[in-house]
């Protein structure tokens, strides 16, 4: 984490917002894993949540690498006003951002499931996990809009909005159960 913070705060172009949002989602996955591990006595299927969090975490970091590359390519194209490259690279950056939102929305729903099944002493941890995942989903959706140059009629924009709504519902449900 310290290494990531150092890299994000550097003057280099990447890692940037996509990686920061990925880290927020990864923290949500880590919290879910911790709580599931600490809830095995009351939650027989806790191992299933741990496995799902691990799979989602793995997808997050694979996507983070893709997101960095597509962001670099899109920024290069924009800085040089290379129209064919802009037309090629921005949609890819949007797709990678959308994938971040998809994974984050799944993590928010996994946090909701965990929040209901875990040792209730950890309910607040799962609320925080869902909030972090929602933030990542929202960031992913924002990056989709930026890379699509705010074309809200695009199917990716619609999907991103639905993903944010799912993550928000999960986080708000848990928060309302305090």
């Amino acid at each position: 984490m310290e290494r990531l913070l150092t890299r994000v705060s550097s003057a280099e172009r990447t890692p940037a917002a996509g990686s920061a949002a990925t880290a927020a989602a990864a923290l949500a996955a880590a919290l879910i894993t911790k709580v599931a591990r600490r809830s095995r006595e009351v939650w027989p299927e806790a191992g299933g949540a741990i496995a799902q969090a691990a799979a989602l975490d793995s997808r997050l970091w694979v996507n983070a690498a893709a997101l960095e590359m597509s962001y670099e390519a899109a920024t290069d194209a924009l800085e040089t006003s290379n129209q064919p490259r802009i037309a090629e690279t921005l949609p890819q950056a949007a797709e990678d951002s959308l994938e971040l939102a998809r994974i984050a929305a799944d993590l928010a729903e996994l946090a909701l499931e965990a929040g209901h099944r875990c040792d209730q002493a950890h309910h607040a941890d799962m609320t925080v996990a869902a909030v972090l995942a929602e933030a990542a989903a929202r960031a992913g959706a924002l990056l989709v809009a930026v890379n699509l140059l705010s074309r809200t009629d695009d199917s990716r924009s619609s999907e991103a909005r639905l993903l944010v709504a799912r993550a928000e519902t999960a986080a708000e449900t848990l928060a309302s159960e305090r």
Partner: protein
Amino acid sequence: MEFHQRMTALSTATDAGLVARCRDGDDDAWEELVRRFSRYVLAIAQQAYRLSPADAEDVFQEVFARTYERLGDLRNDEAVRPWIAQLTRRLCIDRIRAGSRESADPEALEAGVDDSLDRLDEALSVQEAMLAMPDNCRDILDRFFRRDESYAVIGTALGLPSGTIASRISRCLAKLREQLEGREHARPTS
């Protein structure tokens, strides 16, 4: 029995059941046995012993030729997997020695192989346990863990609310674990 039903029955048969049918001369059972263990044999040759694709293919042919000839010698039908693994190991070492034209050190050849074999065994056990799972569980686990599908995509494909997918996956994983533990207890030592 219809062909499709027969092949489905064979694909879910235990290793011992399959061996017994092979010994009775059932060609379909032999085909299923080769299918079930082909990736395992190739993985041992290529991943554990790092044989070239051509050498691994030769080992593959030799393993199943000998298995066919010697299946009658197998003392415990449940032990067919470790038996095939041991046969594959011996043939891989023979192949490496033949290629090097020197007397290769067996200990050096075996370094790290056990770990690779443990991983391959584990993967094969999961694959076998998956075959014994109900269709709905096999499908949802395959979609999430192998095809990397999101909860929303799975929910749409299966007609389920995405909010219920995480709990369904957890339940199916618990069943898979039971399958694996059951097999572990039933497995003979080689």
